[in-house]
């Protein structure tokens, strides 16, 4: 079930994103909980709209952009009032879109692990030629923000 579209999905794939430039936008959580239903609504100011369809957005194959979007499938359920209930099976960042009147509006939700399953958060540091200590120190400092608590030092990957 790669494409979890709810009607008009093929058309929607080619529609522009308007979410940030008009008063119409998706309202819903930006952070979610794994396996817990999340509700999204398409709003025009304080008025809820009933979109033509909802769908999940993916980055394409051979994606060259910077955006983190999972291709794990959200479980999507369109509700009678026009809202969407989405449930994330795995901790990732997901994108959804509502299509209405020929326009597509997008939103993203991050689902972090409820508790980190990783007992040792390991990053590998590659050391296989002459060391530039200034460069190495800057790389280590940047990497320290990722959340790893172990560093593997080796060579030749």
């Amino acid at each position, binding site marked *: 079930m790669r494409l979890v579209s709810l009607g008009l999905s093929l058309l929607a794939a080619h529609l522009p994103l308007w979410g940030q430039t008009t008063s119409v936008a998706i309202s819903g959580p930006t952070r979610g909980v794994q396996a817990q239903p999340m509700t999204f609504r398409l709003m025009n100011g304080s008025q809820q709209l009933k979109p033509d369809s909802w769908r999940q957005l993916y980055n394409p194959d051979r*994606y060259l952009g910077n955006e983190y979007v999972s291709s794990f499938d959200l479980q999507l359920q369109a509700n009678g009032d026009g809202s969407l209930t989405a449930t994330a099976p795995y901790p990732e960042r997901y994108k959804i879109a509502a299509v209405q009147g020929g326009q597509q509006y997008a939103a993203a939700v991050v689902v972090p692990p409820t508790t980190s399953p990783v007992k040792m958060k390991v990053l590998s540091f590659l050391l296989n030629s002459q060391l530039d200590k200034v460069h190495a120190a800057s790389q280590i400092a940047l990497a320290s923000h990722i959340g790893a608590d172990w560093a593997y030092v*080796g060579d030749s*990957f």
Partner: protein
Amino acid sequence: MDLNTPGSYTYTDQPGGWCNANPLSDVAWLVDELHANGFKVMIQPSVYATYESIVDQLQLFLPGAIGTYPKVDLSQVPALFNAWSKMAVDLATLMAQHQAEMFLPGTHDTVVDSTTSDLWNATAATMLPSIRSVYKGQIWWGPIQQCGDAFPFDYSLVDGIWFSGLLVSASSPPCTFLSPPGLNNVHAEQMLSFIRADRAAGSGFSVGQKQGLPMLWMDFNPYPIDGMNYVGSHWAGMAGIAHGIASDMVPTDPGLRDFQEPVDYLDAVMEAGVVESSFQAVAVNSVYLVGPGFVNILEQPALLASLTNWFGGDWNYTHPASPTPRLMCCFRYCP
């Protein structure tokens, strides 16, 4: 280690003209720097050798090792292992001085002849207690391949096992590396199914459980290359053959880049290996310490954000869509 003069095998700390290895003083500096940034440190030494004008990892010159390299005579293998053992104990002594938390000596994935593997096990049986006499951190052993041990080993000598994910394919049947080839346009759901099948079929995945030891998934390479989910770190050779990628620094075909595939691969491996199985972690390759490279995880924003989500790191620092993506300044392709 220069193997050209039988009977006088010794390891040399300082690199010579034929060898680009780092001196142990650099490794010691690195341990201190990593500690200063909040990391615990695990060290795995490698030894390079030169033999008959060829330079590569030492174990590739052992009797029975795969490949076309010349092999040292079996009579010289004890001296070679003794030299390795001295290097390992010397490095352990240095790591004890710098309080590195884990040491991974040796290599266990090279298939050699049975006499050589027996000699290596005999060496390990004396080397590991010698290391423990000078070093009080954890000692882990490996790598274990997904489809089983290259040769038997006494795991009661060590504290944990590292598993090589090098040949784990996320889009082809288990234990069939590159034959048949995997899929290029494959998504996280499909990758997860393949890796679950790998896990069910490969005896290497369960060695830790059988031995009662923790296990770490290593050699995991989420490179931004179309098809990397099945070629892994062999892409430079294998993908080069298939796709014409000639160099890891100067891609010949930018159209073969794919920043989404490593994200999906990472997520599928985390789910199958850590969440659903008993691995302590997936050790993600790599932060480059020696210069830029497109496989450097610090130059892959999408992957970096995914990893930060799994590790519970500073999302505002690493995610490009965050209100204050402070790490963006290091991405060479961003303004």
